[in-house]
């Protein structure tokens, strides 16, 4: 958090000030968005534009709430899940969120997509004290209960993931020469920051970096550049298309570094198969989800629950897309919180329940990895496990690692 301190302080201060200077915030209803038989929940996602690949998350969540309603809902109430399109443009996210809050009067916001998009509404929702739950982004700034008590993430942050890789590298190869390829956006930069966190002073001597833009056609040039540095370790924080390219190119060039890949891009269907499964042997990642294409989970009760759900509610879906397992996990967490609320769906209580989840298992998460939260710790999933590609599937190794204390 090098550049953010001053700004967050500033932002925190302004919240206080603005809170005072807002005489005509809608008079606090007891339970906005909640009627005798309905709870309205709002969300935004990229239903159009280049980031639309994530729109399947919303579709999956809609189906989960539909299933919940068919089972009788929560506390005798049906869930109405309203998703609006923001095209992954922050100003649109603010517009759509205000529509949800001020016009549709939703009880709370759930699983809105993206880091810049959620940043645009971060202060708005905290000023108005609207629960802003389980965001679909892995940035680590969502776990900041002191300044933004109404916002909570869900998945482990990319930064923590990068820290895990860096620590593992130091343990295995103390004098490694590291090459880091990251996407030049909030997602990719978290990998840079995570590695910097661990290496500190040694970063500049140990690490060489290259970046790519999402609009780049290929990353061949970056790979060539990084190989030329003589590195023996490679960390990639890139989206699936480039991950597949990187795995193939590194292998074809005869470069054999110790190779780490972000867990955003390890889907067997979307990355490993296209890259060529044999080319990825030895690739290391860390995950918290079960991979649906991994034969190890063919008879797993949790994954069977997911498969049964998909078969019944989303029969046309692409089952190799691991956004569906992500959505199932976060949806299960949300439903759990709703059930914990009892009959009190006020914003205060929803937030209280969302921030005090007792450690629990979720069907699509790896064994031993829990979902949990405490009022002073908003990292809902804080564990991961390293795994290695053996040419056919991911093989877990080592212990379940708890984020900060590797």
């Amino acid at each position, binding site marked *: 958090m090098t550049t953010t301190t001053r700004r967050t302080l500033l932002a925190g201060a302004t919240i206080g000030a603005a809170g005072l200077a807002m005489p005509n915030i809608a008079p606090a209803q007891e339970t906005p968005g909640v009627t005798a038989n309905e709870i309205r929940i709002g969300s935004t996602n990229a*239903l159009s534009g280049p980031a639309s690949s994530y729109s399947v998350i919303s579709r999956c969540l809609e189906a989960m709430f539909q299933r919940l309603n068919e089972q009788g809902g929560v506390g005798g109430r049906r869930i109405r899940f309203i998703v609006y*399109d923001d095209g992954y443009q*922050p*100003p649109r996210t603010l517009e759509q969120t*205000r529509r949800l809050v001020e016009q549709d009067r939703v009880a709370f916001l759930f699983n809105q997509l993206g*880091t*810049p998009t959620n940043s645009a509404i971060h*202060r*708005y929702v905290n000023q108005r004290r609207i629960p802003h739950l389980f965001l679909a982004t892995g940035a680590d700034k969502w776990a900041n209960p002191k300044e933004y008590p109404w916002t909570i993430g869900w998945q482990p942050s990319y930064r923590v993931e990068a820290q895990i890789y860096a620590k593992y590298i130091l343990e295995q190869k103390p004098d490694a020469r590291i090459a880091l390829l990251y996407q030049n956006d909030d997602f990719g930069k978290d990998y840079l920051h995570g590695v910097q966190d661990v290496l500190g002073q040694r970063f500049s001597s140990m690490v060489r970096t290259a970046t790519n833009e999402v609009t780049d056609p290929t990353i061949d040039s970056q790979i060539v550049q990084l190989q030329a540095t003589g590195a023996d370790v490679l960390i990639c924080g890139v989206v699936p298309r480039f991950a597949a390219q990187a795995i193939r190119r590194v292998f074809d060039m005869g470069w054999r570094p110790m190779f780490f890949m972000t867990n955003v891009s390890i889907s067997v269907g979307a990355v490993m198969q296209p890259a060529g499964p044999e080319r990825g042997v030895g690739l290391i990642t860390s995950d918290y989800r079960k991979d649906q294409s991994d034969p190890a989970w063919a008879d797993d009760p949790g994954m069977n629950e997911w498969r049964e759900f998909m078969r019944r509610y989303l029969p046309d879906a692409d089952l190799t897309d691991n956004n569906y397992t992500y959505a199932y996990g976060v949806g299960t967490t949300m439903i759990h919180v709703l059930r914990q609320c009892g009959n009190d769906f006020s914003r205060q209580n929803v937030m209280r329940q969302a921030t005090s989840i007792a450690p629990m298992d979720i069907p699509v998460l790896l064994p031993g990895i829990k979902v949990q939260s405490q009022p002073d710790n908003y990292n809902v999933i804080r564990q991961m496990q390293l795994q290695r590609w053996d040419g056919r599937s991911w093989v877990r190794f080592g212990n379940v690692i708890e984020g900060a204390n590797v």
Partner: protein
Amino acid sequence: MSASKGIPASAPMVRAPAQRSIAGWQRAAIVLLGAAAALAPIWVLDSFPLFQLTMAIIYAVAVLGLNIVTGYSGQISLGHGAFFAVGAYATAILMAHFDWSFWATLPVAALVCAAIGFCIGFPALRLHGLYLALTTFALAVAVPQLLKHRALEGWTGGVQGLFLLKPDPPSWLPLSPDRWMYVVVLVIAALMYLLAWNLIRSRIGRALMATRDHPTAAEAMGMDIASLKTRAFAVSATITGVAGSLSAVAVEYVAPDSFTFFVSITLFVGMVAGGIASILGSLFGGLFVVFVPNIAEAISRSAPGVIYGVILILFLFVMPDGFAGLLRRLWARAFGPRG
């Protein structure tokens, strides 16, 4: 050889708007009525629709800026999102790092954009049609990358962006920040429209249009086309930059992802839908780009992008010269062809 030879072989870019003389008191009444209608939403609308309207007016100003260069001066720009971004960041940086008030940042944002616009105007002189489209589009693609760049990260907040606050309403005014924001945007938009109106009416404006329609003739008449066009580019960039600055405070957040090349495309769509080389049309363009995506979404939630595209194309089928063209035709039908 005039009349018969001059009859257009290809469709002209615009037809001259019908001019009728209006008495002074009528004009005053129209202005007053217009002002009342523009201010009415403060009391009539809830805060959310008011916010949407605020955004629509901001985009209308941005479209107006684009219209000056592309509509009136005939230089196609697919990169005005860049000026929008620069205006927004100028305001955001001054407010977030130096605690300036919004009002103080506005002239700085305008000046910075004017300067950049002026500089871009020079290579733009040498480039025509597609080449200029590429150049400006490249600008739109490059700006977010520059904003993220390491060297500027300290100022721009990098990919995380900057937070800022709406200007506070004066203490004697019983208005919420949202409503005050609307008033602020309205007043500045009115100023920008007035500026554009005067520019178009002036000798410069007429010269610009002459240059657009008959470049050789205009040159032959001794007009300094180069200086005209670069100045037009500067004014255009200024207006769009002011809109960007307004958007930064209205949204209270800037980030590189808010200013991808999609913004440029959005502005372009607004201009075409509203009507090329039409001041009134720009206003409609702003409404179009804010409200039509919502209509599209209401029609189909599974593929709102497809519906938006379909609406845009159908709209252009029905009104090939935009909303302003429709108005002109209605006007012509109501009052007959002028003599």
